[in-house]
């Protein structure tokens, strides 16, 4: 239908006599662009945005291979090859950052990743609609609360200086636990915070997949004498398995993205040894200390590993017979 309109536009907009100087295809290209000039004007701000704020920084990655000086600029700074990468890999910080990142990513995968799946399966077994909706309404709320509020609430609850959790612990045991400064408590706190904030929200996508399961399958299974657990195992779980795989690929692809803002907020001088991850390190060394080239190299290392992870997990998912995302 669009083509008929184009055709009409071509007829009215253009000189009907084909010009000999321009090949016909090129001429009609320009005609199309001229016809759509309003669309290109609409496209322009967005395109400029992507070029300036997405692609210019990508070009800026070249400073990872320079001794970048803001005064000389990208074009005049000295090229130093992979010096910053070599420095980073030889720096004891590298092992510490990698260790912290991997441990947090692992905890996240083991404790947080299954939480929304389990919560969605439990919600799916609820028959009283109003109870289900009430629970959903409550557990979605924290998703919209900022990380600063979540971290602030954690501080107010856990501080040894009158925080309610420590007051109750003190009442019971006569001691106080310094949750916020003790490095041993850092990782559990991070995982608990993210579980509290995002488990409810994470159920949405699984509940949607569950809602599309054909009710007749359950009815047939009941007639065949399947117990509820058997129905869960043979009907419900297969129905959400592809969703689980897709989210797992995404999660593995972002394995090194460890909730930067959250970690930044929960880090203090006492738990820094276990708290530092690649992103917070880039911020600390790059923005605070001004080592632009070195920190860009660290960031690039992380991005490249991330790309490899997402393609790798996608490849394995396809190999085991699941649909990939790329």
């Amino acid at each position, binding site marked *: 239908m669009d083509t008929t309109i184009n055709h009409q536009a071509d007829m009215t907009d253009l000189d009907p006599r084909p010009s000999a100087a321009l090949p016909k295809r090129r001429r009609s290209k320009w005609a199309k662009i001229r016809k759509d000039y309003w669309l290109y004007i609409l496209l322009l701000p967005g395109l400029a945005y992507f070029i300036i704020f997405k692609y210019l920084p990508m070009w800026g990655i070249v400073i990872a291979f320079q001794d970048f000086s803001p005064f000389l600029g990208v074009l005049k700074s000295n090229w130093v090859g992979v010096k910053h990468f070599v420095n980073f890999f030889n720096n004891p910080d590298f092992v510490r950052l990698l260790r912290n990142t991997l441990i947090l990513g692992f905890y996240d995968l083991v404790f947080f990743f299954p939480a929304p799946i389990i919560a969605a399966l439990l919600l799916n077994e609820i028959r009283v609609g109003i109870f289900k909706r009430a629970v959903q309404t409550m557990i979605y709320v924290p998703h919209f609360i900022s990380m600063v509020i979540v971290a602030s609430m954690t501080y107010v609850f856990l501080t040894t200086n009158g925080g309610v959790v420590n007051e109750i612990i003190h009442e019971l045991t006569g001691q106080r636990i310094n949750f916020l400064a003790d490095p041993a408590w850092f990782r559990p706190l991070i995982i608990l915070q993210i579980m509290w904030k995002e488990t409810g929200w994470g159920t949405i996508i699984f509940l*949607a997949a569950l809602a599309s399961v054909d009710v007749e399958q359950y009815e047939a299974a009941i007639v065949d004498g399947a*117990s509820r657990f058997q129905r869960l195992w043979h009907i419900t779980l297969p129905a959400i398995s592809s969703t689980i795989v897709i989210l797992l690929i995404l999660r593995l692809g972002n394995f090194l993205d460890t909730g930067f803002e959250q970690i930044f907020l929960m880090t203090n001088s006492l738990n820094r040894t276990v708290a530092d991850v690649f992103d917070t390190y880039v911020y600390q060394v790059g923005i605070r200390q001004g080592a632009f080239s070195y920190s860009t190299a660290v960031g690039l290392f992380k991005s490249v590993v991330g790309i490899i992870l997402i393609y790798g997990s996608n490849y394995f998912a396809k190999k085991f017979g699941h649909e990939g995302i790329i």
Partner: protein
Amino acid sequence: MNSSKYDSFGERVFDVFNYLFLTLFALVTVLPFIYIIAGSFATEIELIQRKFFLFPRNPSLSAYQYIFSSDTLFRSIGNSVIITVFGTLTNLVFTLSMAYALSRRDLMGRNFVMNLVIFSMLFSGGMIPGYLVVKELGLLNTYGAVILPGAISAFNLIVIKNFFQNLPPGLEEAARIDGCSDIGVLWRIVLPLSKPIIATFGLFYAVGHWNNFFSAMMFLNDSKMWPLQVMLREIVMLSQVAVGDLSAFDPEFVEPPDQAVKMAVIVVGTVPILLVYPFLQKHFAKGVLLGSIKG
């Protein structure tokens, strides 16, 4: 679908525990908010004696009087409102106009631009090059630094583009036959048909701006420019800013407990979100699920 008369004893036990567990989950989610609100109205004695409570016995407004006694909090709320309003408008103008252009399948260069957008979701220049671009543009310490670098979310753009593509083509054609230009079709036909999705993504963007902490902390050095989230961290977590001004009160004013002051500040940061939550809830499931449609 799971009719209960077929359930065995074990399955009924499971049901009981399931209801208990989900009730507990909902309470664990909601009680911290209620405690924070209750605590912000509490007195020193109540906080020490009762520890955990959901309703203060002698509600006192002193924490709120105190936090609003200087312009520290007012100013940061004002900054947050400015950033949220202008940020959301920027988001909508940029995202909707680009999404409409890209929704037209016959647009030349459309695939190229779509690939640019998709690649930007897979790979990014990272924090430092992004910071340097903002700095070179002279945006440091301006509201633009927290608004422009996030003007379009590639994900939202693609969802809205797909939505535009699935609008019934008949109306658009009719408008065109009546002599509407592309911009006229967008303004008179497409946008009015898209009100729900515009409201949804507008709210999502607005919540993002209200909650934004990191780019504000990175790009705004001047504490007079700080939005609420940055100020909140300074007050509650770092205890570095005295939020109120005691000299503004008469000598009989009982200074509110430190914990109540912090809770009151948290309440101020949370209430706007809780107020828009019913609207968010009405639309968000749709927004999340639209994203799963392949473009």
